[in-house]
């Protein structure tokens, strides 16, 4: 799996998770759910954002490596 595919799956996964959580909050919205959201979900979303940003950078780097180092005559 390439970096772009992995990034896409990760972004899709967190989007679906947050969508489900928004549905859940419709039925469960108290201090316990707020603590749960603060402790796990918000942190996870931030971590995913940081990771997807890093994956974007890595994808650009790998593209540059391929461009600079590959054998043009075979490509």
């Amino acid at each position, binding site marked *: 799996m390439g970096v772009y595919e992995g990034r896409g799956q990760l972004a899709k996964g967190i989007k679906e998770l947050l969508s489900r959580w928004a549905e859940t909050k419709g039925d469960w919205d108290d201090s*316990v759910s707020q603590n*749960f959201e603060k*402790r*796990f979900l918000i*942190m*996870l979303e931030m*971590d*995913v954002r*940081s*990771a997807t*940003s*890093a*994956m974007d*950078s*890595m994808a650009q*780097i790998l593209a540059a*490596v391929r461009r*600079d*180092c590959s*054998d*043009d*005559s075979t490509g």
Partner: protein
Amino acid sequence: MKKLFKGADGRPGSAVDEEKALAKALKRLADGEQKCKAVMAWSRKLPKDIMMFKGSVQRLATALQSDVPTAGAQLSRLLATLEAYAAMQGPTGGLGADDKLVTSSIGAAALSMTRGGADAAGARSPWARLRSKTPAADAREKASGTSIAPVELRAARLATVELEGMLALSAERSAVDPQSRIVLAANLGAAAQIYLERLDIAFPGDSGWYIGRADDVATEPGGSITVSDLLDARVDLVDLLTLPKGYLAVLDGGGVVSVLGARDEELWKAPEAAAAAPQPAPSATATEPAAAAPTT
């Protein structure tokens, strides 16, 4: 020495063709040298970029390996707690109101198989001596001001038959406020056998429960935790905690050893516990210092 290369037809090639081939070869050489330089440059730079990448995704990796399973486990515990409360709802309406007495018939069959109360009614259980180890109200109140981290109990989690038995043990149930506090003996985690006793409320916010060591080591009260914190770690105790005032339960690595009613009658006795029931013992004298670490 000059060498003339001959073509397929045996005749030497023209100078123009040779110059073209030479130019092409020189270009490919230059390209190759450039690629070689690029490979060397990237081989120096790429490890640094990979390290930076790993650093950037490490938090996510940690979250996926640790936080996500923890979150799942917390949700499972909450769900189990809710299901346990829902299962306790009886004809009088459940535990929604504060301190409401509810009736439960769940687990009657299990209780009839294992409880020892019917034939032992009126007989004072040897476990009753544990009541004398429970600190007085003022000592419990003093200890309640020290919040401690939830203690990992060595007592085994209650099996299904015991959970059902706890529900059927008493017709009267007395709900506990999840935010109320339970006073714990110091060094409770070191005890192989513990007891839970429900007493009169000793201070505002008191659940009435005290958890002490059932061995012969005398301890001071070490601090208190909320009912909610205890159930987060030991949701299997949820039904036991709704037993009314005067009840006392003894737990060890095998589960529930014995449950005493308010008159010290043994209402529950583990089948194998009969032989291990303690003999009346002299009061314990060894005192351990409070070792519980205060939290915020």
